[in-house]
């Protein structure tokens, strides 16, 4: 897998446009509870953190699923739900350390981020640049540069 959803929560203002777009694209309605990406927020403390799937190498949702409905795609590296196998037991929901794996009570199925066929709409519509979709190497290089500059400026 090449790209990951890079989230810089410092830039997130909690507008939840990503939630609107995601649910619209996947479910046909603007319904935050059906969005794959969710914003965790604490208004008093003043932070907003977009939470999405990390596409873990050793996904807990895959390990915990009792019927093998959760799986990691060999080629793309995406972690996905096989809706035909899902029995709606919500173990993935409980297992994901990020609270990402979600559950649609109307369908009775788990759902999760699928990178929108490798063109994530949340990244497309995020106007602050809090969500971007970049190759991992680019992200790492960027971070190293930023850190180096920070040290150089001190």
């Amino acid at each position, binding site marked *: 897998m090449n790209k990951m959803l890079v989230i810089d929560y410092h830039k997130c203002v909690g507008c939840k446009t990503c939630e609107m777009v995601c649910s619209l694209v996947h479910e046909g309605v603007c319904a935050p509870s059906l969005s794959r990406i969710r914003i965790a927020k604490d208004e008093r403390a003043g932070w907003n953190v977009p939470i999405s799937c990390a596409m873990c190498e050793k996904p*807990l949702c895959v*390990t*915990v*699923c*009792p*019927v*093998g409905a959760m799986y990691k795609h060999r080629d793309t590296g995406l972690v996905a739900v096989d809706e*035909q*196998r899902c029995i709606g037991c919500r*173990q993935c929901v*409980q*297992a994901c*350390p990020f609270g990402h794996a979600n559950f649609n009570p109307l369908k009775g199925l788990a759902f999760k981020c699928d990178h929108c066929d490798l063109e994530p709409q949340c990244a497309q519509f995020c106007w602050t640049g809090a969500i971007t979709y970049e190759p991992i190497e680019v992200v790492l290089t960027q971070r190293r540069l930023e850190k180096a500059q920070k040290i150089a400026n001190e």
Partner: protein
Amino acid sequence: MKNIVIIGNGAAANSVAETIRKHDSQIPIIMVAREKLPEYSACALPDCLSGWVDRNQLFIKQLSDYDRIGIQTRFGLEINQIDTSKRILISGQETIYYDQLILATGSRPIIPPVLGCELPGNFVIKTVGDIDAILAHQPRQVVVVGSGNIGIETAEALQVRGCQVTIVELMERIFPRIFDEEPSYRIRKILIDRGIEILTGEKVLEISGGQRVEAAITDKRTITCDTVIWAAGVKQNVEIARSAGVELGELGGIRVNSRMQTNIEGVYACGDCIESMDMLTGYPALSLLWPNAKRQGQVAALNCLRQETEYEGAVSLVVEDIYGITAVSMGMTSGTLTGEDIRILEGQNNDEYWRVLVMNDRIMGMQTIGMHSGLGAVMALMKKRTPLSEFWQMIADHDMVRKVAWYLPAQRFLSE
């Protein structure tokens, strides 16, 4: 699509009908079946024989239920022929047109053509009518031929009723296809302690009697009896399908793809009558069990409705109650498991016994006696093909183990 016609009224057939109705409340469904009764659980027949279950408790549906969910029924109708080019079922003078056809014709018990097999007093266990007939016959001394699920359950049921029962089994142990030697032996002991006589490695050659059954003659002895129950295997009901040009598989069942489609367009098949694929090996298999029939029916129905669904394969789960002691067999047995790197994890604790078959570090089957905890966990691990090394890794990880809490009860079985 104009209609969906189902031949059958068993587990698979009803699973098809119910699944269709769940997704489409309008499309006409016609169920055609030989027996005039509404759906009942054939698996519970021995329990009815013992008196544990009332006759009316057997029925899963009443005739009015079909009407209520919009299913037209033609019960008591025997289909003689299927014309797949005209898409009609023919029964005598009557024809039924089908747009999509589901074959769920099931299986029937085999009675080997031995002398005397037609005498009054010979029975099989397949329908409610069989149970009625056996009870009306008032059996006292019974020979049960065969020691699979049906044979053993029937033997227990009749013993509980006060009959003297002898089981005659061709193979060297009871439950030959379901339990390995050791668990089979333990179950045998339970049955013998209850006064059931068990003869293994023995074959019934003839049933003797004048007006009715008087004795069963094996290759070793003559057993006086008034009743013979044939529980020596089943034959799949595929004759009508074969005549219509539906292809059969190498094992004799109707051949279907992973969408339950036969070689003929618009014709699906599911349940006991098909040859399915074993989930664990990927090879063709005959796994004539209730849960498989239900799942196959569901898959056939979804594909019929153009909701493409792949069948993941048949898996065996057998749960037997032997005089209050639960004996479970899931997956493969030593007889069916071939390959390298096979390990057997066996253990016991007081009255509990377990035996896990492992190949290439993956669970391929398990047999237990007297255990109730952790079975579903092992079943799930088996179906997921989780390597045991990975299982133990998660168990050992103090931070992660709570996340996979359902793994924990399986530990007992999987320790070396």
